[in-house]
């Protein structure tokens, strides 16, 4: 007897079970087991499992076309027909659930005849150009024809058919060839069930039915968001990647991790030699479970873009031509400059910035370089400008700087509170999972100044949209907590058992005060008191209430307070420590969690241990054979201040583009222009590199080995797909720079760096590349107590302690709308572009967003005589820029919105140096501005364009005015 094993259970998956096989229909979660006999083989499966799936588990492969195990069974093709003892006819095995004692026959002459007839009908309306078809070798229709033994097509090809169907090539990445469609509707169901966009329909009936995007639109004009789920689902060549059409089928595959957002999707890179043909989401990947978004799935062409710089370059000052040099000369030049600066200005006059786009091993080495070789703690990371308040706030309350759940956990949530996050754009694969849960009936509360897509999605609506004024998160979350304690909705048992009583009592006194009531905070937040009370009750009374938040929480002057207020809310309702609940920061970039874990903050060694802790320092001192500074170093904004005032002169910046991403651009430019040596390590000459003296060519995620850690604390392998274009992987460059400064780092492979991290970091002590190979991925903490990792945190205790309530008083931001600047600007991200756009701008994703625009409410536009597409000047006390207007009902009156994906947009020329009180995370989300119709871009934009053109010329002249041979 074959005992059913559930490959999706934690243990099976974490033991590296292969989920790649398509078992035909989704898993049944029933705990009742039933016994069935298929072709004489006995098998035990959960009740509700389809006959098709049960057979597949026993390696009895019933032919199928319309079924796939990521889609609900549909039963349209009938190819999976079987005979079942006691049942009439030949039922479809995909739609027939097993019953205890059932006896099934999957093969006999009658079944074979029926299947051949079905295939004959399909093939009579299908082009027979298999040898020249792009799906040749990867076509389920072809496979099924073979499987059923089709030898003739009696109906001919001359009757009514779809063979002259048109091809829609409007999407830049895939095409739709109607002539090859068998109308199995897998694409339609993938778009609905997996992606949740509902962009596709089956138009017409019977023989005339065909697949249609939107209202008979081209894909590009429909609601399609190019996630690729339909392409993956299609069993024929109808929906096929253009890269496959152009190049043919892959010859091998390597599993790696997406280099874009914090979901950290696992992908199978399908290769031809060392060329990546396509990226296909990996079903074994526990973060994404076989789904993807347009960025990871299709927008990888930047890695081999012609703008890649693959040779080191140096120059004495930034108004000079670049000079292409050997690695040795560049590293010696950089080493000497840094040494000279420290000799002249002191050891604290230099520092480094790590990037969340780099691997754990790379960020670990950069912070090691700073602490061990620069001999100071001036290291910071781009998380400073996104999730540093998460690190601070969760450590202060839950005792660990990390989210508490797996993504999959949301499938057990009953109420989901989304605060300051826009998952369908910024974390699309999680957004799809969440939408699936909402369609199953979970309730949704959104707190956001904008109307995000989640609020009104196909077949799911938010129960409450708390459309608060920008900058009032703390008042709003406090009001939610006030209602909970005011109405006795707290979880007293959880608080007693799990939380620190003194901090709770103090917090209780504070939060009970009437100034936190929804009625009193309404004037601050703009949110109706009744609506807020209802939302608080909904969250507090849910069996499982989960909170997801993003940069709309952290990028405020009270970012850290908001994070702590969220943790308070979860603790007071007992929504911590099990599936379906928790506090979940949606991290922006792929390795934000990892770069923070690796000790990128100036006050912390790897594993969030303060540099002042002598015992921790000793550990590192022994391993690194140096003595370490016990005082915190400078944060990024502190580095800029010190640079402007002449104390900070040298910066090593790996993979981060501070000139574009950091606030108050003119201030940043001034700081960068004040330094004597800026070393930029990147794959492109990014905006920061225009201020650099040394350019060290970086390697894309395709060119190196390493690991990323996603928002679930999940450590996943990044695997080298092709040789590094510049000859070195990024970690090797840092090793060589250390050597140029007289310090030896000896590693042969990034796995040895991970071994060192594991030796020195208790939460990583059980992590190794070998274990990652076995398990696929690991969620830290992974150590002797949790050798397979920790999917859900704080199940018993808050990391050895009790949860601490924090007092979070609302303190209004200093950035207020006034007569001169009457609007509030808030910034964000969109689906097709990523962060500063350096990668996605160099892909066809440009077709969806080739410029940043200013979204403005119709009333505000009308008041200012602004029409759609007009140039609008946006002025703040920091600076002025100009963008095209998009009039949008998503905005509330008085609030405007833009993105910062294009450097010449100058969105950060307008944002100010205001920052979070605890972490200096910039207040990107609130800037008082005025918007006026203008005729042309701003002076800053004109000047910056000229500067960029000069820098482009300096690059062109890198070989003494000769264009370098490629």
């Amino acid at each position: 007897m074959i005992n059913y094993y559930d490959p999706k259970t934690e243990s099976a998956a974490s033991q590296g079970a292969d989920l790649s096989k398509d078992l035909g229909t989704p898993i049944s979660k029933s705990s009742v087991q039933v016994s069935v006999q298929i072709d004489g083989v006995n098998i035990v499966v959960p009740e509700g499992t389809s006959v098709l799936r049960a057979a597949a588990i026993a390696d009895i492969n019933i032919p199928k076309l319309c079924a796939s195990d990521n889609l609900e069974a549909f039963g349209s093709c009938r190819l999976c027909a079987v005979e079942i003892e006691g049942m009439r006819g030949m039922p479809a095995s995909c739609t027939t659930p097993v019953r205890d004692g059932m006896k099934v026959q999957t093969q006999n002459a009658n079944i074979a005849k029926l299947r051949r007839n079905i295939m004959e009908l399909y093939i009579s309306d299908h082009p027979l150009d298999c040898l020249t078809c792009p799906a040749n070798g990867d076509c389920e229709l072809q496979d099924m024809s073979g499987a059923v033994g089709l030898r003739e097509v009696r109906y001919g090809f001359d009757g009514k058919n779809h063979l002259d169907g048109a091809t829609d090539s409007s999407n830049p990445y895939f095409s739709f060839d109607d002539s090859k469609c068998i109308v199995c509707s897998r694409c339609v169901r993938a778009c609905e069930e997996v992606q949740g966009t509902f962009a596709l329909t089956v138009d017409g009936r019977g023989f005339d039915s065909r697949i249609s995007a939107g209202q008979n639109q081209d894909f590009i004009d429909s609601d399609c968001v190019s996630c690729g789920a339909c392409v993956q689902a299609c069993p024929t060549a109808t929906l096929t990647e253009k890269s496959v059409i152009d190049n043919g089928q892959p010859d091998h595959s390597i599993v790696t991790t997406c280099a874009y957002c914090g979901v950290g999707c696992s992908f199978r890179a399908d290769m031809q030699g060392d060329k990546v043909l396509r990226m296909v989401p990996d079903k074994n990947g526990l973060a994404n479970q076989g789904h993807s978004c347009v960025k990871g799935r299709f927008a990888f062409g930047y890695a081999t873009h012609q703008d890649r710089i693959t040779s080191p370059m140096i120059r004495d000052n930034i108004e000079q031509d670049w000079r292409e040099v050997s690695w040795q000369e560049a590293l010696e030049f950089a080493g000497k400059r840094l040494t000279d600066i420290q000799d002249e200005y002191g050891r604290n006059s230099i520092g480094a910035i790590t990037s969340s786009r780099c691997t754990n091993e790379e960020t670990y080495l950069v912070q090691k370089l700073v602490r061990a070789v620069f001999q100071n703690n001036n290291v910071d990371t781009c998380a400073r400008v996104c999730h540093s308040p998460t690190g601070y706030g969760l450590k202060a309350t839950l005792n660990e700087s990390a989210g508490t759940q797996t993504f999959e956990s949301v499938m057990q949530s009953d109420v989901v509170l989304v605060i300051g996050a826009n998952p369908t754009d910024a974390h699309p694969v999680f957004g799809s999972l969440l939408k699936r849960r909402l369609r199953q009936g979970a309730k949704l509360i959104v707190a956001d100044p904008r109307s995000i897509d989640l609020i009104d999605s196909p077949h799911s609506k938010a129960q409450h949209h708390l459309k608060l004024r920008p900058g009032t998160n703390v008042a709003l979350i406090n009001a939610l907590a006030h209602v909970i304690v005011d109405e006795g909705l707290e979880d007293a048992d959880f608080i007693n058992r799990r939380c620190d009583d003194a901090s709770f009592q103090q917090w209780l006194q504070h939060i009970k005060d009437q100034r936190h009531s929804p009625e009193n905070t309404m004037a601050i937040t703009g949110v109706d008191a009744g609506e807020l009370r209802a939302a608080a009750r909904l969250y507090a009374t849910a069996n499982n209430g989960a909170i997801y938040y993003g940069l709309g929480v952290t990028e405020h002057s009270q970012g850290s307070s908001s994070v702590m207020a969220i943790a308070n809310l979860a603790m007071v309702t007992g929504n911590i420590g099990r599936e379906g609940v928790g506090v979940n920061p949606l991290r922006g970039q792929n390795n934000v969690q990892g770069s923070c874990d690796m000790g990128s903050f100036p006050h912390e060694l790897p594993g969030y241990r303060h540099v002042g802790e002598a015992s921790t320092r000793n550990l590192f001192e022994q391993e690194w054979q140096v003595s370490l500074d016990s005082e915190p170093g400078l944060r990024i904004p502190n580095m800029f201040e010190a640079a402007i005032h002449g104390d900070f002169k040298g910066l090593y910046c790996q993979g981060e583009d501070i000139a574009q991403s950091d606030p108050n651009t003119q201030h940043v430019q001034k700081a960068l222009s004040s330094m004597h040596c800026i070393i930029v390590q990147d794959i492109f000459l990014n905006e920061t590199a225009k201020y650099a003296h040394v350019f060290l060519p970086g390697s894309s995620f395709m060119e190196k080995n390493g690991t990323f850690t996603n928002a679930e604390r999940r450590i996943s392998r990044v695997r080298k797909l092709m040789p590094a274009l510049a000859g070195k992987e990024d970690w090797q460059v840092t090793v060589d720079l250390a050597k140029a400064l007289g310090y030896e780092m000896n590693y042969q492979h990034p796995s040895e760096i991970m071994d060192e991290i594991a030796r020195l970091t208790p939460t990583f002590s059980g992590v190794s590349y070998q274990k990652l190979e076995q398990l696929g991925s690991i969620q830290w903490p992974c150590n002797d107590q949790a050798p397979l990792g920790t999917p859900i945190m704080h199940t018993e205790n808050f990391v050895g302690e009790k949860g601490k309530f924090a007092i979070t008083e609302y303190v209004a931001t200093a950035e207020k709308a006034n007569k001169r600047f009457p609007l509030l600007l808030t910034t964000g991200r969109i689906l097709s572009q990523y962060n500063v756009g350096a990668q996605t701008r160099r892909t066809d994703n440009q077709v969806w967003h080739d410029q940043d625009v200013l979204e403005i409410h119709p009333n505000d536009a009308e008041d200012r005589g602004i029409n759609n597409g007009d140039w609008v000047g946006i002025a703040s006390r920091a600076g002025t820029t100009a963008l095209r207007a998009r009039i949008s009902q998503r905005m509330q009156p008085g609030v405007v919105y833009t993105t910062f994906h294009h450097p010449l947009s100058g969105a950060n020329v307008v944002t100010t140096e205001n920052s979070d009180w605890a972490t200096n995370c910039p207040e990107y989300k609130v800037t008082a501005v005025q918007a006026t119709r203008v005729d042309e871009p701003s002076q800053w934009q004109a000047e910056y364009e000229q500067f960029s053109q000069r820098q482009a010329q300096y690059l062109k002249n890198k070989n003494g005015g000769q264009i370098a041979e490629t």
Partner: protein
Amino acid sequence: MSDDRLKYVVDMANQIALNLLHGKEQQQCVTEISHHINRFWAPSMRAQLAEAANNDNYQLEGMVILALREIKITAEN
């Protein structure tokens, strides 16, 4: 030392105080402020804060002034 530089640390310290001074006894506030600044600020910034405290041009919040006694001021190297 330019004015801007001192104003920068004064504004930061005052903002920390404004966020930490609620719902607690004075001594707890003072401890939390000094603990925060000792834990997260580079010594150079703490030295600038001390310098600003001795300069009448800068307005430090009362709690910050009290906290200064517990803020570690070390010589820069």
